[in-house]
């Protein structure tokens, strides 16, 4: 590992860190960097929220007419 741990290093291993799959030495390195880095704290928060925001925003509801045409489509091919 490089002498000085940077924000870029933290971003590189962020997913593994959040999922708890980092080796102890790496976890310690990222945690001690983030503890003194408001930029990383803010970045990590945005990164963590991104899947949730996209999940909610793309949760398309099935239109009622489509549910009906699906049943007609299957019935016609039985």
């Amino acid at each position, binding site marked *: 590992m490089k002498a000085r741990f940077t*924000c870029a290093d933290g971003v590189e291993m962020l997913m593994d860190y959040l999922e708890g799959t980092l080796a102890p030495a790496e976890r310690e390195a990222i945690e001690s960097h983030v503890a003194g880095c408001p*930029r990383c704290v803010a970045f990590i928060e*945005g990164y963590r*929220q*991104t899947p949730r*925001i996209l999940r909610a925003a793309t949760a398309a*509801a099935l239109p009622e007419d489509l549910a009906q045409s699906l049943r007609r489509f*299957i019935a016609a091919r039985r």
Partner: protein
Amino acid sequence: MAPPAAAEGDEALAARAAAGEESAFEELLARYESRVYRLACRLTGDDGDAKDVLQEAFLAAYRGLPGFRADARFSTWLFRIATNAALMQRRARARRPTESLELFLPRFDEDGRHAAEPAALLAAGRADELLDRKRLAEKARAGLERLPDIYRDAFVLRDLEEMTTADVAELLGIEAAAVRQRVHRARLMLRGYLSDLVGVKP
């Protein structure tokens, strides 16, 4: 006597549907049509394509039920069919070239430090508070469309459909490590994209 339908497992229903009980198939359809449609929308980005995928997936499931092995999970089996149908559908359609989201990857200064200030870096995580719901829905869809396909597929299946990494790897025919790498990169691009949407440089 059979247990009430609400308590019956998918696999038992699938077995009855495979034996020709139409009502059992109807129940499976009712359980999964919304989720399959949502998956199709996320992977194809087009209402018409999503409709086709929905129909093709359930027709393929209907016809494939006799070959469904009862030791597998019905939902995994169905989502595999639906994902493959969506990827085929997308391949058949020439996509308009869009500006890739690569430009929203995080930026660092020469010391490897985040180029943006903390307040700006925080903005992406508040996109759902800062943006009108309808506008965010449109932009989220457009954002998925702008992800390079390999990142989009991994991100949709893993982070939006919440499948396991192992299931996504099997579905896409790639290693688990590659799934993780793609999901991570997609999150980075979309984080920057959300940030840009709320008017802050990523």
